[in-house]
């Protein structure tokens, strides 16, 4: 257990350092990505999709960074074990640690993005007390993402083209999730979105961060089910496949 935590700490630190090219300034570089997406979408959509949305810039920014956490984690999880052939063929390092450390690493940069969000929110004068609910949904988002990452990191050993499949899937998913647009009340989109865990994550987060309202219990319940369901299935798939990882790379 203690050994596992140490490995987790060291590998997360290592991948964080590598990503930042060894300097704190490196953090700026990967914050620039979401910020540019944000600015472009804001310029394009604020007068069309954003007219009926209160605080559209914040709505959009929260959507982008929360989605980013999910999509970056899952896409990096595809290679976090599969890409480490040398390591897993010569050391019996517990494979799940590689997955957890990948998601943790993305979580750290996500926290930086959240800080930037707070700065911008403060600039717009939006400070809510329901912010205390945000950590709950952050944890649920982490659990959901971790589950998907577990499944992907293991399934790529069986389906080598999972990377391509997943990049198409996430693109479709991005458009199907209200990130830069809002759903009509009572429309068809709202019914479909009930089955979209990312919708619930965004909805509850935005309620807490921007619209000062407590999480809708029904939405929260669905999200809890999705998160733990995802973690359960993810671990199950991982556990089924991991003994043979070293033979398949």
């Amino acid at each position, binding site marked *: 257990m203690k050994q596992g935590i140490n490995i987790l700490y060291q590998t997360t630190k290592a991948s964080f350092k590598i990503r930042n090219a060894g300097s704190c300034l490196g953090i700026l570089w990967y914050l620039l990505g979401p910020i540019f997406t944000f600015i472009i979408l804001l310029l394009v959509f604020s007068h069309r999709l954003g007219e009926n949305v209160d605080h559209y810039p914040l709505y959009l920014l929260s959507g982008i960074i929360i989605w980013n956490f999910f999509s970056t984690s899952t896409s990096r999880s595809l290679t976090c074990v599969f890409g480490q052939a040398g390591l897993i063929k010569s*050391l*019996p390092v517990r494979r799940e640690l590689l997955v957890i450390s990948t998601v943790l690493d993305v979580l750290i940069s996500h926290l930086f993005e959240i800080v930037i969000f707070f700065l911008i929110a403060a600039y717009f004068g939006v400070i809510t007390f329901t912010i205390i609910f945000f950590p709950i949904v952050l944890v649920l988002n982490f659990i959901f993402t971790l589950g998907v990452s577990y499944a992907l990191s293991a399934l790529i050993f069986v389906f*080598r083209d999972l990377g391509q499949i997943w990049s198409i899937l996430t693109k479709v998913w991005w458009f199907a999730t209200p990130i830069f647009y809002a759903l009509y009340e009572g429309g068809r989109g709202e019914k479909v979105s009930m089955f979209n865990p990312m919708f619930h994550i965004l909805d509850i987060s935005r309620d807490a961060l921007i619209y000062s309202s407590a999480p809708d219990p029904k939405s929260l319940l669905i999200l809890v089910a999705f998160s733990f369901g995802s973690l359960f299935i993810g671990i199950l798939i991982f556990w089924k496949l991991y003994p043979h990882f070293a033979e398949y790379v």
Partner: protein
Amino acid sequence: MFDTDVITVRDLSKIFTLRGEETALTRLIKFREHLRLPRKFTALKNISFSVGDGEVLGIVGRNGSGKSTLLRILAGIYPQTSGDVQVKGRVVPLINLQVGLQPKLTMRDNIFLVGSLFGLSRKEVKTKFESIVEFAELRDFVDVQIYQFSSGMLARLAFAIAIHLEPEIMLLDEVFFAGDASFREKSRAEMEKMVKGDCTVVMVSHQEDLIKKMCDHVIWLERGEIILEGNTDYVTGKYCEHTVIKDSRSSSISYT
């Protein structure tokens, strides 16, 4: 001489399933072909042996005889297909010395990272840090990113970390000694000290002199089966005889 067995292997077999490149796309297109039974390859067949506490076991055999597969099963990297494997103690597999080194990190970060991957705690690495740097003779480069190291420097770093891991059971796969002559001599002496010490060792090597010098007993593997097992001199003697005859025969064919 060796009262307790720390490694016990009984009736161990390993069968690999040989797979083609499998993608979701090819599965969809040729889903019928999937019904065909995949090819099997038997890498190890009914292997049984045991290694006592502090004993040094050598494994010899030609390429593809299953030596590395056996080491990986002992290390817990591959699962066995059938049979029983018991390994008691802290295992350090030195199958690839440079495993886990990250080119873009400094030597300091790498020592901590690799140390943790091999199961050392932060505190243990801290206490050994100076000694590792000293042994690698790389004091001036502690905060240099290691992609700038020469291959000799890398090998020295990797070896320096490896000998500080303090294993109870060490699995060595053809560990060769890199670097210049003096470092090679130093690392060879250090490795011998470790092997001759309390540590239990299973080593695979093609260097007969190394096997003869270090091992207490030797197993000769051929096509996944134990052909001969026993006293070092006896087994290596037979093995050398066999390979020399085979080599001379094949060379005489190729020359005529």
